[in-house]
């Protein structure tokens, strides 16, 4: 399988935050979720990919091409959508599309009309009049109309109601079926369970892991009623959280033998993340 994106040792320094040696790769025709708590470096990573943020060091290859050397060519093949951000709020979406089409060699008016119908977008409406979900759909329509092969989406589901989120996730899966590749960041982890093939997990500017979703989940077990753990058991706990019934603890699959009496279970992604991020 060929790679749509390869990121190697991406570094960026801010006064109070550092992105350190971020590396991951994304296969063509797959969906990867970029996860991590707020401030983990998701947006900085995505912006670095597109040259919006200047990395201190690192290598970014799209379809084997260096971004710095083939910027315009790569951008022709990419669509970037940021949830909660929109351009030209008081312009009609038809005006924005009319100008945007001028920049793309592969702009397809038929596809654009199809997207307008599919997403129920009215060209005569201003962006200001659209809901957050419709704004994301409009930006997706622009990306799809120039046949973007790779969609980079920054928090596309933030601010959406559960039904709209569900619709959007189904759309992502449809797009991948049609040959697109998607990289999207989110802190709504449950979204990833529904559609992602893989995850890249960022923690304080570092990649904690980058692998298949099921492989990642399979590595952990959740212990419920973990209120009276022995010292040996406590040493093996990766993170502990409290709920109404008591405490839950995250452990590695290979440590299950030490917790058999508590019947550890396979946790969902959100549970893994919340435990790994738990303050010690």
């Amino acid at each position, binding site marked *: 399988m060929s790679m749509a994106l390869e990121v190697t040792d991406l570094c960026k320094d801010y006064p109070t935050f550092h992105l350190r040696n971020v590396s991951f790769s994304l296969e063509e025709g797959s969906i990867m979720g970029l996860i991590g708590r707020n401030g983990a470096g998701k947006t900085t990573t995505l912006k670095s990919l597109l040259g919006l*943020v*200047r990395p201190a060091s690192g290598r970014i290859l799209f379809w084997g091409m260096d971004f710095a050397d083939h910027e315009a060519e790569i951008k022709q093949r990419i669509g970037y959508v940021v949830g909660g*951000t929109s351009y030209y*709020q008081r312009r009609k979406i038809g005006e924005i599309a009319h*100008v945007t089409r001028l*920049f793309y060699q592969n702009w397809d008016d038929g596809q654009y009309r199809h997207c307008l119908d599919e997403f129920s977008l009215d060209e005569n409406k201003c962006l200001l009049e659209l809901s957050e979900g419709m704004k994301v759909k409009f930006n997706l329509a622009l990306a799809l109309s120039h046949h973007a092969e790779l969609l980079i989406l920054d928090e596309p589901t933030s601010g959406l109601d559960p039904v709209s989120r569900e619709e959007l996730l189904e759309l992502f899966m449809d797009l991948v079926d049609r040959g697109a590749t998607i990289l999207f960041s989110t802190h709504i982890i449950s979204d990833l369970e529904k559609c992602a093939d893989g995850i890249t997990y960022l923690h304080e500017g570092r990649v904690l892991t980058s692998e298949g979703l099921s492989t990642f989940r399979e590595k952990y077990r959740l212990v419920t009623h973990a209120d009276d753990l022995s010292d040996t058991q406590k040493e093996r706990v990766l993170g502990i959280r409290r709920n109404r019934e008591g405490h839950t603890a995250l452990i590695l699959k290979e440590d299950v033998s030490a917790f058999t009496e508590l019947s550890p279970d396979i946790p969902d992604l959100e549970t893994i993340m919340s435990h790994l991020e738990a303050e010690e």
Partner: protein
Amino acid sequence: MKTLLRKEMTLTAAPITYFFIAFAVMTMFPGYPIVMSGFFTCLGILYTFQFAREYNDILYTALLPVSRDDVVRAKFAFTVCIEAMTFLITIILAIVRMTALANVEPYASNPLMGANLAFLGYVLIVYALFNTVFLSGFFKTAYKYGRPFIVFCVVSFVVAAVGEVLPHLPGLGALGATTAEPLQGVVLAVGILSFALGTACSLRASMRSFSRIDL
């Protein structure tokens, strides 16, 4: 580049920027420091930069399949286009004042600067200051425009004041004449040179600044 300029003209530009081109008619105002017409043109362009910031225009443009240098070039091209349109009207009106209206009241006894070649030079100097002080200042951050504009206001007022004072100094009366005089050609030449060099240097500095900042 042509496509980007079209985008600047249609999607980004604040309509009021085009309205401010009409301030070129200030050239016809007697008893008024008419160099300020150049300032008003620049004030009109400022509105487009305000629009650009509120509309996330820089981010939108940077995401298009264009280079960062082209983003800066497009903003400069738009600015120079607006200045050129205004200046063209200013030239026509100045010629009318220097010829048909040179000896007509109230222009003949106008105590302030006449619409002559020196006036055109001062207008170009004001444009040059906008292109250097404001544009290069803006592209240091691509969102802060207050400070560069205030600095531009101060220096352009100084230019207007100098333009009004010089003709009253001994031997420089020709600078304020209602008809074209050779001495006025010196100011015009300085204007043309400062506009061309200032804009070119500012463009290079702006591209360098913009290539380094994070959006």
